[in-house]
């Protein structure tokens, strides 16, 4: 608040360090001192990194970009929770005022076979791109489109499609799931496209192909624990998964191959 002076925090960090994709990782203890409660979690890591460089040690590698909760680049599992303890928050939007002086914080990368570690807290999420590549689009070439208003969309469907489309592809759902399942991510994309009239033509092929790719990437199965939705910074709903399940079964039944 304006005018008040804040106390700084001292924190004990236990951070996963791993030299490369094929190396063995381990936890390392780091001290974070003079941490202002107004800092974001990533700014706290910035401060630690500056101190590490000054000491001649290797700074911590972590993914980040927009730092306003929309690009989906930042990851990290903080004390067992993807993107930290707050709901509907990405790591970059988590602020240190949510922690207490003297807290111990364990920071791990998102862990899944389909998200191999690149270095320290950086993981490779290209499996998500390949899932989209397999069918997460509407096949319309540039210049083919009719006038935008010739195709009215029921407002409720438009809103639901939008909500599903708010997925930022960060992978917290996979990180949170006890089975490292990508069901929430895949089903959100399916809900986005299949709820719209534009997406109908390919709806069945889309679900068949995307689910096949999801399995091939080595994600686990969905057990409907809801952990994905709870960890999702955009609060994508669990009901999308049920929609995917039923449309998958229907499409499979009808398909000729």
């Amino acid at each position: 608040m304006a005018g008040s002076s804040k106390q700084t925090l001292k924190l004990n960090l236990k951070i996963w360090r791993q030299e490369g994709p094929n190396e063995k990782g381990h936890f390392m203890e780091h001290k974070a001192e003079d941490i202002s409660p107004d800092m974001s979690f990533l700014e706290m890591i910035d401060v630690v990194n500056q101190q590490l460089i000054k000491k001649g040690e290797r700074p911590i590698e972590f993914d980040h970009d927009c730092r306003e909760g929309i690009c989906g680049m930042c990851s990290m599992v903080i004390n067992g929770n993807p993107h930290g303890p707050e709901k509907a928050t990405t790591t970059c939007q988590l602020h240190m005022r949510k922690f207490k002086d003297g807290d111990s914080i364990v920071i791990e990368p998102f862990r899944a076979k389909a998200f191999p570690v690149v270095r320290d807290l950086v993981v490779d999420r290209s499996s998500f791109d390949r899932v989209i590549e397999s069918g997460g689009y509407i096949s319309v070439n540039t210049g083919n489109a009719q006038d935008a208003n010739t195709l009215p969309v029921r407002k409720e469907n438009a809103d639901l499609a939008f909500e599903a489309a708010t997925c930022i592809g960060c992978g917290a759902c996979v990180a949170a799931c006890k089975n490292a399942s990508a069901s929430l991510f895949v089903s959100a994309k399916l809900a986005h496209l299949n709820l719209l009239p534009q997406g109908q033509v390919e709806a069945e092929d889309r679900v068949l192909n995307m689910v096949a790719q999801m399995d091939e990437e080595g994600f686990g199965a969905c057990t409907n624990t809801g952990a994905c939705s709870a960890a999702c910074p955009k609060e994508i709903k669990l009901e999308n998964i049920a929609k995917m399940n039923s449309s998958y079964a229907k499409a499979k039944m009808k398909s000729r191959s």
Partner: protein
Amino acid sequence: MSKKLDSKVPSGDLQEKWTKHRFDMKLVNPANKRKFNVIVVGTGLGGASAAASMAEMGYNVMSFCIQDSPRRAHSIAAQGGINAAKNYPNDGDSVWRLFYDTIKGGDYRSREANVHRLAEVSTSIIDQCVAQGVPFARDYGGYLANRSFGGAQVSRTFYARGQTGQQLLIGAYQSMMRQVDKGNITMFSRREMLDLVVVDGKARGITCRNLVTGEIEQYAADAVVMATGGYGNVFYLSTNAKNSNVTAAFRCHKKGAYFANPCFTQIHPTCIPVSGDYQSKLTLMSESLRNDGRVWVPKEKGDKRHPNEIPESERDYYLERIYPSFGNLVPRDVASRQAKFRVDEGRGVGETGVAVYLDFKDAIQRLGKDAVSERYGNLFEMYEKITGDNPYEVPMRIYPAVHYTMGGLWVDYNLMSNLPGLHVIGEANFSDHGANRLGASALMQGLADGYFVLPYTIGNYLASTELNKVDTNHEEFKSSREEVTSRLDKILGVKGNKTVDEFHRELGKIMWEYVGMSRSEEGLKKALEIIPKLREEFWNNLSVPGEQNYKNSELEKAGRVADFLELGELMAKDALDRNESCGGHFREEYQTPENEATRDDENYCYVAAWERKENSGKPDWELHKEELTFENVKLATRSYK
């Protein structure tokens, strides 16, 4: 020798130019298209839409991005919306009106023909995006909804709640991934372009670093497209993403591409203020907040009372006072500058004194808390998450921040730079926004370039240019690789005591102080004196840990800051050279007694395109001018009183 630049604008009536030009351009035979390789660097709105469209046409596209996935490009952060002259609300909008507003908003420093083409294709963009499944806001009848944005007189902005950029980008990204699946695009993520390869005077490839393995990789092609965004991070603190940088564009500049109007930067008035030295970026909050929020500071200097304890009579609602007719809705540059004046007077608020209040108390009283929450709930939540203050109870603190850069690599009407084969699209080029960009126009320009302009004009280049077979064994590729490697070695070899961030912050402070919201001859000269000194210190006292051959963020950042250290100087030089105030460029010497900008159309109605030279090891620049002629609009002074 200063050259006169040829913008290659086709002849004929303004409205017919693009149609005529499309007919006049040479076409590539469909069977030959797949024989052409095109490199696209960047996967934001411009890059992704261009890559997808060209791949659909049949070209062989190689696409590069710095992030782990093309979907994360910074276009994703755009909140407000995208303009298009659809006139769905039937409120009198037209292509001509959008064209006119954009020219005027750009303070008459953009190219008429480009802006008209932008307005023309704007309607196709909406059609294309809807067909891709972009979930724009709709009304209860199922038709697309529009809103008025940034003080425009018509409602022409299409939006998807506060995430228009993300939704448009995902549409383009998905189209692109479809082409990856078909084998027409090869995607290279986590690659940073570190050099442009020019063979026989034409752009023929790039040298980049694989950010995971650290390997230097090279790719050859028939044309290169830069879609690498803006350079706002030269200020260290900006609303840009942390990885946004000028390096790719600046490498092209070093290889001969002209940099145009570098001093035209846009400052956004409603950002969350800096809270401390550790601050890593600034967060923008939608301009729409000014529709209901009232901007004020205390009348007394240094009034440190809690805002709720300052009585109405001791508050100065300065925008309403100075601009009675536009009030809190004056354009971005005016609102930003006025906030700076208040802070400079010592009437800034908050712990740091570098902020002004944006107060919703009256709006809550007038409309009720629910209505305010309906309109701005998500923004209020975001503000509370970052600052810990509840804007329903305590006025928001806001301050301007660098947001967008209108300047960029110089391009002609075909979006090709002066280097043949090098095309530049989106924020990375300079062409459409003049000295100031209107709200909701950035998304429009990125997609216009990528979907509807470049895919045609690049065909013309490929069809009409003789291109020898070139592969990465060519001498130019070898020397580029050596240059890149030795530069990385040089960065790692300094082994000094100051971190990259320390240099970047220092540069940012200089830029903000002297080349920021308002500029003076004295300040700019000072900047031109200290930036080279800082650059020298950088190369003598930089500390970058680790090696080249693995993921090394500090090394990545160092290369970018090295380029910012040159760009900063160029920006100051350009700002000093432009002896007028226009749009985002405000020179203190050129203002009316009421602190309004004074343009000098007689002497400065041109695009300043800078060619980089070396002068005894030091960077130097030569100015080339592209005169701007206005045949269809009358140059007038903006007034918001």
